[in-house]
């Protein structure tokens, strides 16, 4: 009996431990009316047959299976398959019908369309209603539904309180099926219109209409923007074939193209168009010869292409238009806008891609995040699969390799790194120096020409410098990648970054040298020449030659490499598209355009043309020659790095050069918009002075004097910015610490959880051991809390044995049996045992169950005890007279019911409830059978009924999952009791009606024997 009632606790613990997490979710398991019905034959077979472990295992598995299945139905998300328990499902649906709001177009509120979010909450709440007994199911179901309605209403409230834009965003972000989203949207709209109708009707209508109008306008704008989107189909094709890392290049190209289009539009409309309107006959003295397209000199020299052709006058066509100011402000505003756009995209990109990047989690990333869903070509898919496999294998072996690096090896690696850095720096310095001397040589050459048109050959000579520059840009990176191959890098990323840094270094130094030459030598030339136009021409040449070299680069780098790879050296295979190199080329080209914008305002038009052609060229070259990249680096991070590079050395460099030119250098005296001024910036000064005369413009003057021209202002601003930066830096440090702490906390909680699970499991497995040990060494148990109970049980058992022995001696010694004494002895024994059991329960409860369950259980125990007492009396009476067998059975069933009720209250988890339910059912069945049988033929079959009841009980007990030790004990006991029952049954028919006490004594003897066996079993 001990284990009978304490099983419930075991169960709870078991369930908690194994399915602690799932439990919350599996709460809405449909009520199984008879979930174990299917298993019944098996169980009976197993029970009556071998009583083997397998039967236990089978039922155990069944239970888990069932729970998992239940969970599956619930969590399938948007497309949950219909519940297999149809009646339940139907009822659910039927209930939904009156949940519909009139405005809701779609049916079925809950089950299938239930949102995951709501569902998740419902799951969690479910665990609060563990009483899954038939009576409770309705309650629970209502509770869930209410819960969900509440949640939905909360959601609605949330949504309604938002602004229209936020609403749309929130609705889109709901993780639910489309139908549910639509329904919620309709509800929100309906609610809004209801709310509006309380206001003045005309106003409501108006605002409704305007909001609809604005929404539609927004959508139309988006449509229009999409229609303007360039190369959508090509992008998709490239992404599908080569994946997103290659696509990065094309996105970048497109982005730069947009920059240039903007700059061209601005420059053309604010600088060029007014000039053309004012003075449409700018004619060149030199005829067009064709070479100008390459050199930008000759015919182009005096066109609107360059700085020199622009006028410094003020147009007077009704309104005044100062060309000087227009030139200055257009370029300044464009540069500032570019800077802002770059900073914003860089910041957002950093925010997205670099905030929490954790380089450690490579495998998880490779497996779960790296698959490119946009890839659509079969070849690429198979190749990617192969690559991923290779990478995974590498990462597995890398981990093993890393620790094996010895000191000499490390030294060797370090030496190689050092050497390659040294060599590449030397190369860069050499290049820069040679470019500088080449420029000086060219300058001397030019100065000999004198003014006027140069010959074709002289003009062609100007291409020398850009040619050398582009050649260096093409060839030196090849050396860099050669070094890169020789070096040993621990990971792919640092390899790429080293390469990128060296290339940036090269390009920066070349550009730096060129700028130095322009600023310090060209600008100081004879004032007769327009030095800005000369710089503009030089930049034009660089842009054009760079374009040709990029084409050559894709011809050699991709086409020839492909021919070699596929025809000559098959081992090499087709080349990969080198994203880093190509993007750096783009950045370099864009920097040229930015520097050139001051000297040649229409340079962006050349740049647009260049990028446009480059896009198609690269696309064709890519699809014809290249294979998808073998290593899929972290494309998003690379993109961020590229934007950063574009901003930091290159754009900042360009803007400082333009700024330096306009602030500090003397503009040419004979040409250009700023002729006659000391600096280009003086134009603003003059303008401000002119403003003095105009009334109402004092604020502009004040701003100019106190902000733009005041050092103290910049000083203060710098201080403030530094201070703010420091504060933010400290904030970041604090956040980092916090993140670390929170991470630690998550880990700790995980540890706590696993520790608790272990503890529960230990407890659970130690408890049956206690049971087995209790008769042997109750005191010596490890856990003091459990020590007492085994002792109590032992005492009880001893008392009982004593009583039974007494009984036996009575029956032996005296021929006329003393009914009352035996039964009373037995009663005493039972009582003692019960007390012991209660103590046991008590202890168990104190170990882990809430007090309420204790009292409930003890109540149950009392009821049971009473019932058993009655039953015993009945039995004894039965033995004597066979008068009222029905009372006994009814008492039993009463007791069982009482106990069930109590246990129902006590039970903690729903799973346990189910088991209990099943058990109750079984027991009730048994009880009923007993009653039936006893009513029909009281004398003979009562014992068999007992056996049946025992079996039923066994069956019930079988359903309780427990540890194997416990099972063994139970089996032993059950065996004993069954035997007892059988013997009893065996005995009773032999002594029919009249034979009273002796039969009972015999039965008792048998029982005692069984009990002894049972005790031995411990």
């Amino acid at each position: 009996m001990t284990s009978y009632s304490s099983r419930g606790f075991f169960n709870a613990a078991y369930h908690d431990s194994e399915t602690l997490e799932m439990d919350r979710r599996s709460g809405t398991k449909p009520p199984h009316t008879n979930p174990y019905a299917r298993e019944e034959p098996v169980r009976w077979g197993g029970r009556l047959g071998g009583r083997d472990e397998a039967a236990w295992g089978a039922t155990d598995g069944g239970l888990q299976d069932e729970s998992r299945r239940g969970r599956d139905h619930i969590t399938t998300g948007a497309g949950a398959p219909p519940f297999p328990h149809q009646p339940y499902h139907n009822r659910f649906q039927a209930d939904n019908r009156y949940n519909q709001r009139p405005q809701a177009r779609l049916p079925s509120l809950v089950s299938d369309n239930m949102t995951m979010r709501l569902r998740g909450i419902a799951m969690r709440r479910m665990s609060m209603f563990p009483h899954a007994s038939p009576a409770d199911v309705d309650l629970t179901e209502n509770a869930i539904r209410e819960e969900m309605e509440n949640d939905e209403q909360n959601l609605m409230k949330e949504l309604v309180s938002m602004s229209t834009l936020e609403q749309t965003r929130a609705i889109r972000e709901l993780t639910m099926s489309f139908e549910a989203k639509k329904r919620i949207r309709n509800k929100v709209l309906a609610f809004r219109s209801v709310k509006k109708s309380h206001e003045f009707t005309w106003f409501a209508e108006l605002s409704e209409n305007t909001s609809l109008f604005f929404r539609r306008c927004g959508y139309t704008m988006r449509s229009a923007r999409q229609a303007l989107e360039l190369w959508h189909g090509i992008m998709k094709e490239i992404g599908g074939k080569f994946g997103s890392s290659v696509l990065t290049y094309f996105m970048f190209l497109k982005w730069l193209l947009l920059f240039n289009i903007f700059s061209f539009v601005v420059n053309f409309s604010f600088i060029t168009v007014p000039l053309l309107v004012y003075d449409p006959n700018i004619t060149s003295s030199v005829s067009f010869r064709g070479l100008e397209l390459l050199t930008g000199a000759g015919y182009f020299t005096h066109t609107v292409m360059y700085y020199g052709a622009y006028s410094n006058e003020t147009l007077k066509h009704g309104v005044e238009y100062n060309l000087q100011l227009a030139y200055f402000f257009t370029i300044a505003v464009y540069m500032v806008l570019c800077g802002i756009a770059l900073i914003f995209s860089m910041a957002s990109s950093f925010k997205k891609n670099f905030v929490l990047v954790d380089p450690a989690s490579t495998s998880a990333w490779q497996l779960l995040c790296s698959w490119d869903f946009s890839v659509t070509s079969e070849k690429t898919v198979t190749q990617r699969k192969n690559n991923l496999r290779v990478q995974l294998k590498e990462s597995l072996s890398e981990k093993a390799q890393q620790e094996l690096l010895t000191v000499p090896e490390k030294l060797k690696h370090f030496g190689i790194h050092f050497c390659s850095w040294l060599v590449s720096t030397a190369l860069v310095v050499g290049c820069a120096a040679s470019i500088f001397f080449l420029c000086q040589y060219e300058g001397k050459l030019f100065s000999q020409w004198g003014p006027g048109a140069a010959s074709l050959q002289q003009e062609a000579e100007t291409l020398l410098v850009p040619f050398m520059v582009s050649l260096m840009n093409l060839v030196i990176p090849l050396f860099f990648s050669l070094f890169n191959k020789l070096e040993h890098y621990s990971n792919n990323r640092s390899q790429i970054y080293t390469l990128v840094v060296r290339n940036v270094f090269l390009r920066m130094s070349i550009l730096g040298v060129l700028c130095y030459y322009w600023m310090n030598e060209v600008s100081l030339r004879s004032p007769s020449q327009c030095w800005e136009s000369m710089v503009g021409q030089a930049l034009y040449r660089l842009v054009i030659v760079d374009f040709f070299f990029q084409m050559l680069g894709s011809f050699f780098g991709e086409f020839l490499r492909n021919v070699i790879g596929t025809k000559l050296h098959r081992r090499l295979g087709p080349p990969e598209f080198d994203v880093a190199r190509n993007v750096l080329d783009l950045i370099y080209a864009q920097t040229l355009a930015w520097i050139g914008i001051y000297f040649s305002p229409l340079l962006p038009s050349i740049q647009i043309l260049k990028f446009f052609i480059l896009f198609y060229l690269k696309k064709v070259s890519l699809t014809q020659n290249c294979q998808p990249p073998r290593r899929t680096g972290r494309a998003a991070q690379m993109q961020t790095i590229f934007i950063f590079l574009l901003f930091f050395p290159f754009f900042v460099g360009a803007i400082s050069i333009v700024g330096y030119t306009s602030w500090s250098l003397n503009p040419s005296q004979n040409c250009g918009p700023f002729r006659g001024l000391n600096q280009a910036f003086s134009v603003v000064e003059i303008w401000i002075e002119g403003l003095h005369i105009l009334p109402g413009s004092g604020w502009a003057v004040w701003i100019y004097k106190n902000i733009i021209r005041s050092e103290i202002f910049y000083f203060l601003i710098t201080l403030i910015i530094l201070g703010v930066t420091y504060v933010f830096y400290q904030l970041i440090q604090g956040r980092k610490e916090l993140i670390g702490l929170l991470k630690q906390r998550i880990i700790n909680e995980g540890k706590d959880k696993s520790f608790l699970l272990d503890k529960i499991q230990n407890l659970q497995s130690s408890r049956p051991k206690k049971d087995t040990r209790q008769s042997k060494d109750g005191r010596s148990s490890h856990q003091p809390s459990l020590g007492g109970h085994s002792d109590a049980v032992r005492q009880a058992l001893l008392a009982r044995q004593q009583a039974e022995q007494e009984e036996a001696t009575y029956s032996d010694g005296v021929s006329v049996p003393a009914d009352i004494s035996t039964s009373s002895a037995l009663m005493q024994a039972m009582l003692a045992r019960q007390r012991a059991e209660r103590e046991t329960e008590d202890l168990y409860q104190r170990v882990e169950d809430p007090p309420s369950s204790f009292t409930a259980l003890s109540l149950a125990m009392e009821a049971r005890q009473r019932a058993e007492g009655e039953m015993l009396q009945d039995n004894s009476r039965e033995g004597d007279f066979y008068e009222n067998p029905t009372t006994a059975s009814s008492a039993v069933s009463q007791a069982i019911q009482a106990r069930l009720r109590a246990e129902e209250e006590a039970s903690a988890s729903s799973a346990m409830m189910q088991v209990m339910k099943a058990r109750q059912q079984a027991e009730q069945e048994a009880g009923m059978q007993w009653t039936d049988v006893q009513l029909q033929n009281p004398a003979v079959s009562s014992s068999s009924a007992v056996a049946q009841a025992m079996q039923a009980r066994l069956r019930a007990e079988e359903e309780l999952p427990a540890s194997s030790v416990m099972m063994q004990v139970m089996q032993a006991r059950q065996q004993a009791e069954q035997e007892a029952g059988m013997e009893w049954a065996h005995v009773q028919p032999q002594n029919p009606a009249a034979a009273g006490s002796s039969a009972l004594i015999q039965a008792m003897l048998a029982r005692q024997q069984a009990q002894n066996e049972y005790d031995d079993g411990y």
Partner: protein
Amino acid sequence: MGNKQSIFTAQQLDAYQDCTYFTRKEILRLFYRYRDLAPQLVPLDYTKQPDVKLPYELIGSMPELKDNPFRQRIAEVFSEDGEGNMSLDDFLDMFSVLSEMAPRDLKAYYAFKIYDFNNDDFICKSDLEKTLNKLTRSELTEDEVKMVCEKVMDEADLDNDGRLSLEDFQHMIVRAPDFLSTFHIRI
């Protein structure tokens, strides 16, 4: 543009635009893509909301999904019935989530569901093994599969319960920014 009125009502289009990340044009384009899968099944008039569902075989044969190792899971996750049979609404929803505009959390949620093969709301080892086998054509040895799965669990399982919950997964996604660009199907 005139015939779009006959396919959807203005209200329907508004609803679609409010619930997805698509513009009118894209919705129509997607509708035609959907219809092209089975012109005889899908009517050209959606104003009466016909109850049409295309079977998974047709959905999975789209060029965008055809070679995707997860195509079946994608279809299952986004379909109302969980078996990959999709109505137009499901279809739009799927591409909306996979579009560029969808926010990270939404994408992460559905990616999680896609990787959760046994629908138990956790990515457990068996799910990881399935993912791995799908991604590597089952060419890794059993030991390697086991090692990789253990490593992934090691790295991503924050609370040490031996499986990845949605929170674990989202945490990983935050640290793997490429996910946004890779969990993306252009239409």
